């Protein structure tokens, strides 16, 4: 008994502190384990079942994963997600960096610009996507009208398989820009001013200072933004769900069905819970792989001032 009590501390005072500590962390830790820990275990368990949620489940081993590898619908969703990543991430990062660089100087209306660029971040994705959906309607939409002088007013952005990802990417980039801008601004403000002063004394021009001071010293922030972008872009759901709701959810021929939407439809339209769990785990694995790949590659381009990582 005393040996057990010793675990909590040698003196009554340290023991009392240990009890307090446990009591303080208990609600959140137990809640996390129950509401998030159990589902993690359940995810693996469910992925091994053939189960529609009503009939008794049937054990099928790795059957769902075999199906996954041979399912054209999964590879289609994977491809759609990769295409979106390829558009959203580079454009989003360049735009947010450009805006951050501009707002990092002395300018009139700096805080005004910061507010306007950040506004979409706080907006509900559903409401904002609704506005964009209206803007992208053929003929009477705002964008159709802007494009009318070059004869593109009847372009049906949301039903054409070759176009549908552009409106979706536009909303994603628009809503994400302010978030990345703030991260870049924080990174820029951490670069010591003296470096620029010294470089200017040595006769360096703006472009060289950007290449040899700003970019390398900002690279840890760029790396962070990239990691966060990848994680969030893999999960794109709301925008697709709303934008394609009027015609065919997921776009014509699933041309806009992202992995998340595929997961959702498998679970709730097709009631294939086992398979959807397998898709979820595949998404997790893809995220993990991309993150690990980036962490490995960072050594080549991310500069850490202290010399250690």
């Amino acid at each position: 008994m005393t040996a057990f009590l010793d675990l909590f501390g040698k003196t009554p005072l340290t023991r009392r502190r240990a009890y307090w500590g446990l009591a303080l962390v208990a609600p959140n830790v137990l809640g996390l384990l129950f509401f998030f820990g159990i589902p993690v275990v359940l995810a693996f368990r469910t992925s091994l079942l053939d189960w529609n949620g009503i009939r008794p489940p049937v054990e099928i081993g790795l059957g769902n994963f075999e199906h996954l590898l041979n399912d054209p619908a999964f590879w289609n969703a994977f491809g759609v997600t990769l295409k979106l990543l390829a558009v959203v991430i580079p454009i989003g990062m360049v735009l947010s960096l450009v805006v951050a660089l501009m707002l990092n100087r002395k300018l009139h209306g700096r805080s005004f610009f910061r507010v306007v660029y950040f506004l979409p971040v706080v907006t509900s994705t559903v409401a904002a996507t609704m506005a964009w959906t209206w803007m992208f309607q053929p003929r009477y939409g705002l964008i159709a009208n802007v494009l009318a002088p070059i004869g593109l007013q009847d372009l049906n952005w949301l039903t054409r398989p070759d176009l549908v990802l552009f409106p979706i990417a536009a909303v994603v980039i628009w809503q994400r820009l302010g978030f990345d801008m703030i991260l870049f601004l924080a990174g820029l403000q951490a670069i010591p001013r003296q470096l620029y002063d010294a470089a200017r004394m040595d006769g360096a021009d703006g472009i060289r200072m950007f290449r040899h001071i700003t970019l390398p010293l900002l690279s840890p922030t760029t790396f962070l933004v990239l990691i966060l972008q990848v994680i969030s872009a893999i999960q794109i759901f709301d925008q697709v769900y709303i934008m394609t709701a009027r015609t065919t959810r997921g776009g014509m021929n699933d041309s806009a069905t992202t992995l998340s939407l595929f997961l959702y439809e498998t679970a709730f339209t097709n009631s294939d819970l086992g398979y959807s769990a397998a898709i979820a785990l595949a998404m997790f694995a893809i995220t993990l792989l991309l993150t690990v790949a980036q962490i490995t590659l960072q050594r080549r381009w991310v500069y850490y001032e202290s010399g250690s990582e």
Partner: protein
Amino acid sequence: MSATSRIDKSEVAEAGALRDDLNTAWKLITYVILITGAVVMALPFFWMISTACKAPQELNTLPVQWIPQNPVCLQNLAALYEQSPNFNNYLLNSAFVTIARTVGQLITCSLAAYGFARFRFPGKNILFAMSLGLLMVPFQAILIPEYLLLRQLDWLNTFAALIVPGTFSAFAMFLLRQAFMQIPVELEESAMIDGANPLQVLFRITLPLSQAALAAFAVITVQAAWNDFLFPLVVAGTEPSVRVVTIVVALLQGERSTPWNLLMMGSFLATVPMLILFVIMQRHFVEGVSLSGLGGK
């Protein structure tokens, strides 16, 4: 001698003038780009409000009306409430879920953060590592099992499903722990000597000293909870009495007959509380983003 120095001076002056010209040109370009960008960023909001105030016949006129000729904002508001009579209830549901989740998280996460920051107990490192491990799991990976768990509890389509899982957070706990650890421990010790128990110390000393972190974390939680769509869609999408506003706006669109002016009015109502909150709490939002960026989420 004096001639060369004069030439030098005029050269320097010329170079200086050139640089000033360049600077002015750069400034001008900067403003043009920033203003164009700002217009694009604000355009969907403008278009949302403009459409929300248009009469039905103005929706299908060419060229488009940037500003409605005779705004009918209030009539459209009334029409929206006619089509969706419980819209106010949905806004209230959203507000209730948002506040309950935020307050719940503030309580559970401050307690846990304080426990991990200042106490020693057996299993501390394992529990902390396990909580942080859950941070790595993307929400969508556990969406279906979460649904199954809530179904097992018979919580589907209840406020409990919308609120309770959202009151626990590894991320907020981690952020608050960082904030608490920056407070000098001597302040807490002196209160302890005066006979205060840990809860009293937390509420009277630690939390008041962490106001900035608490505010930053609260605004991002409020924003995330209010705008949440996929989770309420899955766990409480079919029961009208617990419907939140994001779901309703999506459903309005599903009914194809809903004209764009009413859809934009609905979207506007769903957006406006967060826009107001943002304008009031701007600084905390920005801090929240920096914090959440650092936390890696």
